[in-house]
């Protein structure tokens, strides 16, 4: 019983982590139809910016998180203007530009900052004890931030003017432009938001794990699994996909090795996708 309960709690915390990282990717793909394979690298860069500000220059850590989010959002606008705009709706071109971004950023970071292990200090150190269970507070914080961001995003895409305009653009670009929606401006806002969310995730994960130039690779794959399984076009589906993959990752290693757990999780995902290609709550994507 106790084992089951602690496995459940671990599952929830891992799911929350995955959801936080996948939010930016899911948002950009659902709302703008841009599949951003360089999401993992942007997430990594944000962690390093936060590290530079907080550890090297000694700024307040929350302040450096906010600065990092702002810088990366600005970078998102740059990416939209000079990269993604020429690749929307074309998977081939999206892969080329993403690989180019990954190559440049990853190797630049690896040459300048790589070499030895760095880590951000914890955002909220300490543990919380309830009955016989103890939680790390920073993991709980990740959970809360993930839940809050998820709710805010769903509200944003469904209820606000900008969110509705983004949906209109992803459905029919020319039609949206004819109705007087400023397509480039709205796309820039969406990219800035997505990169900002990647930055929040990068700073939080940089405190939970070590920073490295390649920390984004695994997380990119996890996010892709979450987004595709949850369904493109539905940010709510991310919640269920996150729960499923998080619980698989929490429970399967109890019975087997870590890599075998990966294989089982992937097999489950592939089987679900073969029967339901559009994911849990998704719509058909072209």
């Amino acid at each position, binding site marked *: 019983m106790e084992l089951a309960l602690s496995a459940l709690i671990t599952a929830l915390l891992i799911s929350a982590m995955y959801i936080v990282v996948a939010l930016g990717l899911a948002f950009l793909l659902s709302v703008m139809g841009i599949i951003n394979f360089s999401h993992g690298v942007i997430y990594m860069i944000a962690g390093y910016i936060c590290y530079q500000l907080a550890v090297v220059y000694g700024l307040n850590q929350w302040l450096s998180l906010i600065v990092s989010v702002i810088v990366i959002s600005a970078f998102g606008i740059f990416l939209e203007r000079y990269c993604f705009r020429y690749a929307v709706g074309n*998977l081939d071109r999206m*892969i*080329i*530009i993403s690989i180019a971004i990954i*190559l440049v950023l990853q*190797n630049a970071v690896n040459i300048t900052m790589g070499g030895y292990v760095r880590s951000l200090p914890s955002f909220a150190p300490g543990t919380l004890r309830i009955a016989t269970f103890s939680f790390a507070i920073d993991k709980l914080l990740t959970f809360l931030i993930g839940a809050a961001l998820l709710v805010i995003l769903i509200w944003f895409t469904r209820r606000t003017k900008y969110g509705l305009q983004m949906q209109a653009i992803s459905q029919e670009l020319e039609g949206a432009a004819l109705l007087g929606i400023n397509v480039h401006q709205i796309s820039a806002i969406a990219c800035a938001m997505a990169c900002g969310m990647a930055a929040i995730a990068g700073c939080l994960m940089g405190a939970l794990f070590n920073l490295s130039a390649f920390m984004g690779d695994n997380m990119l794959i996890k996010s892709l*699994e979450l987004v595709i399984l949850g369904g493109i076009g539905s940010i709510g589906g991310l919640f269920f996909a996150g729960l499923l993959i998080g619980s698989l990752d929490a429970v399967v290693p109890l019975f087997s090795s870590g890599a075998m757990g990966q294989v089982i999780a992937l097999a489950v995902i592939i089987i679900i*996708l073969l029967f339901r*290609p559009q994911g849990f709550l998704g719509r058909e994507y072209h």
Partner: protein
Amino acid sequence: MCADEKQTASKSNAKIIRLAIYGILVFILALLPLLIKSPYVIHVFITTFIYIVATVSLRTVTISGQYPLAHAAFMGIGAYASAIMAKLMGWPIWLTIPLGGVAAMAIGAFIAYPFARLRAFYYAMVSLFFGLGINQLIIVSTKWTGGAGGFTNIPHLLPTTDKVPYYYFTLVFMVLCLGALWRFEYSRIGISLKAIAQSHLVASSVGINEASFRILALSVGCFFVGIAGAVYAHYNFTLSPTCFDITAGLWLFVYALIGGLSSFNGPIVGTALLIIAPQLLSNLKQFVPFISAAILLLVFYVMPQGLVSLPQLLSYWIKERRKKDTLSHAA
């Protein structure tokens, strides 16, 4: 009638010219080891030949409208299957290399049937996850594959360690594979595959069985990438799972895209440029990725159809330039 005859005549002429160009290129490549003595350069060329087979077989899959992001994993299946059969079971290498291809083909055909339900983007994503799963399986089965530490002491393909015999072997191997893939693409089957890629509804309405043709395309592609992987294994003597992971899969796709997926020559040009140019241009290892990135960005912004569209683009630019000149003269 007359115009028709003319057309066929010019078509066969173009075919002969094309074959002659290929022949001259192969001839130059065959003479190359006499000029270049550096073993490293020869090694780069050998790797390029093997990867050209891999990317061209990837294109064979893409002409049927599938996005095989797991192609590097099939290369891994071929490589590991051949290496296991040769090392642990002691079978002769001339047998294990084709069997490696057959192993990759069998798994490709097995997954192709359920994958035939998926289209475009979803196919790409599920095949990406499949490639990742295969890679993790290679890591997990430590007893057979050596796990993440790598598979070492694979039997040699040729009884020498000199690079030049390997160069000629891989050159002949590449020419044979490309010939076979060329024949496949311009056969009746290849035309049906292209029809499916353009519109699967129209294709099935004229009696092309979409699912079976897609399975066939994936099997053929996987067979050739499997034997390419097997040759790679017996040339390199060591294998590591990182050679066949997701990044490698995306890179294979990028090699083909950079050259241009619309033409048979595209993957050849793209692979050759992206493997050879960064290695030969830079003396510093750490700047290699930046050169690759520069090539990717150049193709992304200037040549949307890939490198093979460069001659058309050039003639278009020259025409535009002339038009401008005549306009300014007139004014």
